């Protein structure tokens, strides 16, 4: 297990050296230097290259030993495996405490590679250097604008910490972060995880103040019980979301008992996650959205949900989705009904989902949302229908009658209203300490619609469908209940 000082060298280095920098824009040694510089990394950037060329404005030096002492904490290594042992010794001599190895030719490359990897780890341990990878894609750390990776994107800053056995899943999660505006604190591709594995990174995230939720992708686990026991201790501190590839072996078991045949791999893994308080997601989007929800919404204190909608059908479908979860579509208490009656014409649903049925005036949505979220019998709100007005406004704005016939004024009014509603959802959620999830297909169908755009600007996720909001909220409630039942404050 690496020390916290070594993790600091990896995630918050004072300076970074790209070892094996290249002037060829197709090579890892160029791409990583490019990404590091382009992301505006706060610390000093150095690079080594046998020819001592200038690359991207950085004067390279032939050897790590040519670097100043004590100014570099992290080496980003793009050199061939055969030269890495000497490289690590040079790093140690210059006080470098962490190295990210993109180099292939280790554990993934047969018996000889495995031996090389074992030797590499032994050497790194002897030298006191954390080796991340090898055969990984890189490391990202937004608090210091570090984007040391051979792939895109550079994610927005935020509070999700990612660790993955597959580098491409780091990219997948971060692409969703770019799309939704929900950002990351740290991200790392564990590569072969020769010295540092996914559980190690998650344990670091557990102690890391910049990280509010851990998100991980794993495939093969050599010791599932020990892995989940470690994640259980992290989940005691903050939520952990797990996506697992290769969930089922499908192998039929010779079992004398019914229990044996019912205890499939996937069910056992599912149960082990639940027992550890780990949120298991079935898909990439579900994993990202669960993590994004943990990172941006308060934990619910109960499972009583009110659906607030401007149209009936959406509410019905959302109620159906809720019925398949641990959440409860709460019966509206009398005093809340009476309160809402004062704001709406008699045709409103008088039921949960609260269907405003087009009866709203200028201030109805924020006012009813406030009443619902403030009620002690309500633990969470799902809000549907944001962006409808702006959607019509867009049609008007792009039509041939604009801006005459009063269109300019009404378009501005519609757009202002949707922004207001999105801001109200975030503000009321902050004030009441209850999750308010806004869902509309416009989040992806027309992300520039002022409604979803304002949700993003508020730092929250605009869910692309109500069932995805329900799934995310269900994950939150299960975690909250896990904590409450175990007296975890």
């Amino acid at each position, binding site marked *: 297990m690496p020390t916290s000082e070594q993790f600091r060298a990896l995630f918050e280095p004072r300076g970074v050296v790209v070892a094996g920098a290249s002037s060829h824009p197709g090579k890892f040694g160029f791409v990583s230097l490019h990404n590091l510089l382009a992301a505006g990394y706060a610390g000093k950037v150095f690079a080594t290259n046998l020819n001592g060329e200038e690359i991207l404005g950085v004067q390279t030096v032939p050897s790590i030993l040519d670097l100043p002492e004590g100014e570099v904490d992290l080496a980003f290594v793009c050199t061939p495996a055969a030269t890495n042992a000497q490289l690590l010794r040079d790093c140690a001599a210059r006080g470098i405490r962490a190295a990210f190895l993109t180099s292939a030719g280790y554990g993934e490359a047969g018996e000889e590679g495995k031996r090389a990897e074992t030797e590499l780890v032994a050497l790194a341990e002897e030298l006191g250097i954390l080796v991340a990878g090898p055969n990984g894609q890189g490391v990202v750390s937004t608090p210091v604008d570090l984007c040391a990776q051979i792939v895109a994107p550079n994610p927005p800053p935020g509070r999700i910490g990612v660790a993955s056995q597959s580098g491409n899943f780091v990219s997948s999660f971060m692409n969703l972060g770019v799309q939704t505006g929900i950002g990351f604190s740290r991200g790392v591709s564990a590569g072969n995880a020769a010295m540092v594995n996914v559980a190690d990174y998650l344990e670091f995230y557990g102690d890391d103040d910049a990280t509010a939720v851990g998100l991980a992708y794993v495939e093969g686990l050599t010791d599932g019980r020990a892995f989940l026991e470690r994640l259980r201790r992290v989940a005691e501190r903050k939520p952990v979301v797990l996506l697992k590839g290769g969930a089922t072996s499908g192998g039929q078991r010779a079992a004398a008992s019914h229990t044996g045949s*019912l205890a499939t791999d996937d069910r056992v893994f599912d149960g082990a996650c639940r027992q550890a308080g780990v949120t298991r997601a079935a898909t990439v989007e579900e994993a990202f959205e669960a993590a994004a929800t943990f990172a941006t919404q308060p934990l619910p204190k109960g499972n009583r949900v009110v659906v607030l909608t401007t149209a009936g059908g959406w509410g019905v479908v959302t109620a159906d989705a809720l019925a398949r979860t641990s959440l409860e579509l709460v019966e509206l208490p009398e005093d809340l009904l009476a309160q809402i009656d004062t704001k709406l014409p008699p045709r409103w649903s008088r039921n949960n989902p609260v269907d405003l049925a087009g009866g709203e005036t200028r201030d109805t949505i924020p006012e009813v949302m406030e009443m619902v979220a403030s009620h002690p019998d309500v633990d969470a709100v799902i809000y549907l229908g944001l962006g409808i007005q702006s959607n019509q406004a867009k049609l008007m704005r792009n039509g041939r009658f604009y801006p005459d016939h009063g269109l300019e004024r009404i378009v501005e009014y519609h757009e202002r209203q949707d922004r207001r509603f999105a801001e109200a959802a975030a503000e009321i959620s902050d004030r009441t300490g209850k999750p308010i999830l806004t869902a509309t297909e416009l989040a992806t169908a027309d992300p520039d619609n002022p409604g979803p755009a304002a949700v993003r600007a508020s730092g929250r996720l605009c869910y692309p469908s109500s069932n995805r909001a329900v799934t995310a909220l269900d994950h939150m409630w299960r975690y909250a209940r896990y904590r409450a039942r175990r007296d975890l404050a």
Partner: protein
Amino acid sequence: MPDSTTLSETESKRLLAAHGVPVADERLAPDADAAAQAAEEIGFPVVVKLNGDGIAHKTERGLVRLGLADAAAVRAASTELLAKATPEDGEVQLLVAPMVRGSRELIAGLAEDPQFGMTVMLGVGGVLAEAIGDVVLRLVPITATDAEDMIDELATQRLLGEFRGEPAVDREALVAVLLGLSAAAEADGRIVSADLNPLIVADGRPVAVDALVEVTA
């Protein structure tokens, strides 16, 4: 997995009961007359089954006689069952137990996972559990809170509340079953698997009317 062998129903129940799993009151009888005598003591109606170390799947082999209302019926059933015994069954006896009635059946058990080791299971549907597939698992050992979570995670929650005039399932008793299974697995390393199937909910209380424990040979 190492070679394993199954215990008789009575041995299985005795082993699990020692760790706190509640089982129905029942008697072993060597012959039809003794079975009838045991049935008188328990009170009618009763169930009579053929019991033996080598007998794993009684229902499939027709070795269970349900709802026997008087001594004559018990005698007749006992004679038939003894005649069905095969040499592979080993030494056999008759197991006489009260007829437990309930319209809900659960299943609970233990199973060894190659990756995670011993697990505790709870499911809906008793002998139909495989078809229904509403099953939750945890790794041994479990806490009472884990057991509570398992009950809450069954998809068929309606079955756990009041049902067809029967009271809601006694959650504490169900927690005790799961904790007992976990304790048995923790304490006895020979256990490879265990089935409480069906676990009939009678007046809200889960009662294991059959048990099968598999141990390393």
